[in-house]
């Protein structure tokens, strides 16, 4: 029975990630995870953190719903209504940072500044945040699978943490696998041609451009409502 629940949670997660509506965010996620394409360990770490970030969001929502009986329809409506709208603007701004069109002054308290800088430099902290934010961007299909599919199971099993965690891993899995394949492939080419620095220059730029395009797509769809 336990195993059946876990399998259902993973399966619902995978269904969420391969459904057409989160496709745009998946493309952005893959390009972000694999943008340090020549450092396979970084890609690996950043993929895992992205997936954990997604799980984190689902765990928070799961605990809120299972333990505090927060009103599910209102929560679902709120997330679908507002997160997608803000996401477009956010993606454009992040894309501009990636393209060095914008600079963000790091104003994190001095103690953790170095750590934060190091993590941000490696792009791993960013992956975690990206996971958190992208998981919040519900669309009709993912809302049906999470609020309509996973949450009833989680409530029955009184599992506000376990099942959402597994579901989150399921939703991150395809992006993770794809990023690894890309990194493995180009890693191999790099060893042959020693063009590490140059390739990374382009992958970072490509990630920035993809973020801006996805951001514009989201803004046109959810704010201007013309797509």
């Amino acid at each position, binding site marked *: 029975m336990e195993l059946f629940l876990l399998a259902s949670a993973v399966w619902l997660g995978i269904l969420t990630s391969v*459904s*057409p*509506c989160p496709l745009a965010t998946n493309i952005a996620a893959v390009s972000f995870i694999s943008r340090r394409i020549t450092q396979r360990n970084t890609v690996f770490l950043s993929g895992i953190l992205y997936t954990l970030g997604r799980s984190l969001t689902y765990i928070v929502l799961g605990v809120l719903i299972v333990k505090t009986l927060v009103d*599910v*329809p*209102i929560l*679902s*409506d709120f997330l*679908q*209504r507002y997160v*997608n*709208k*803000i996401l*477009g*603007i956010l993606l*454009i*701004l992040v894309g*501009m940072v990636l393209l060095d*069109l*914008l600079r963000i002054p790091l104003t994190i308290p001095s103690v953790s500044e170095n750590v934060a800088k190091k993590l941000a430099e490696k792009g791993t902290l960013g992956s975690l945040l990206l996971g958190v934010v992208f998981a919040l961007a519900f*669309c*009709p*299909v993912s*809302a*049906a*699978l999470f*609020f*309509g*599919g996973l949450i009833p199971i989680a409530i029955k099993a009184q599992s506000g943490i376990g099942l959402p965690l597994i579901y989150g891993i399921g939703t991150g899995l395809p992006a993770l696998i794809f990023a690894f394949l890309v990194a493995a492939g180009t890693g191999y080419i790099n060893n042959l041609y020693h063009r590490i620095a140059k390739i990374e220059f382009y992958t970072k730029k490509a990630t920035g451009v993809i973020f*801006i395009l996805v951001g*514009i797509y989201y*803004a046109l*769809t*959810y*704010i*201007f*409502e013309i797509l």
Partner: protein
Amino acid sequence: MDIRKLIKSLLFIFVVLSLGVLIYKEFSPKSESNTVDVAATRADKTTVSVEPVPAPKSQPLKEPATKQKQEAPSPHTAVKSQNSKLITYYFHGTFRCTTCRTIEQYSHDAIQTYFAKELGNGRLEFRPVNVEEPENKHFIQDYQLVTRSLVLSLVSDGKETKWKNLPDVWKLVRDKDKFFQYVKDEVEKFLKET
């Protein structure tokens, strides 16, 4: 002005414009057409109309419907009388995704295929509703909606006596035959009570 600065400025303009539109749409008062909708929706919720879709047309027929209601001897017999009808709601948002459109299309077609007679005599009605319009927001609470949904609502004597959300539309949307069968079975169960 070099190309980087140009791109930067253009993107900034787009971001500011998006923010502006977002804030405007959130806080602007709704247009007049929506108020008409409110009236129609509320009227349909409280009175029984014998007229099928579209909703606004049902207004002039309200009187005969009320008369019928008065003639009905008791609420018990009324359940079996002309006064009860089945409304099939399809709830959607402003943003229409591909799968959601398919669900709406299939639901509509299934009902048209199997229940043309009931649609014709007003015992059954298919009604798409945008829950992101402020006046339709109450449906989210009424039917505990978490996403685009198909809901059957049995109304007799202006009062809703029974409703059911059909969550399997999401599972069956990839199998048209099963989807049609599912909608047909569920609607039939409800129609027996009208």
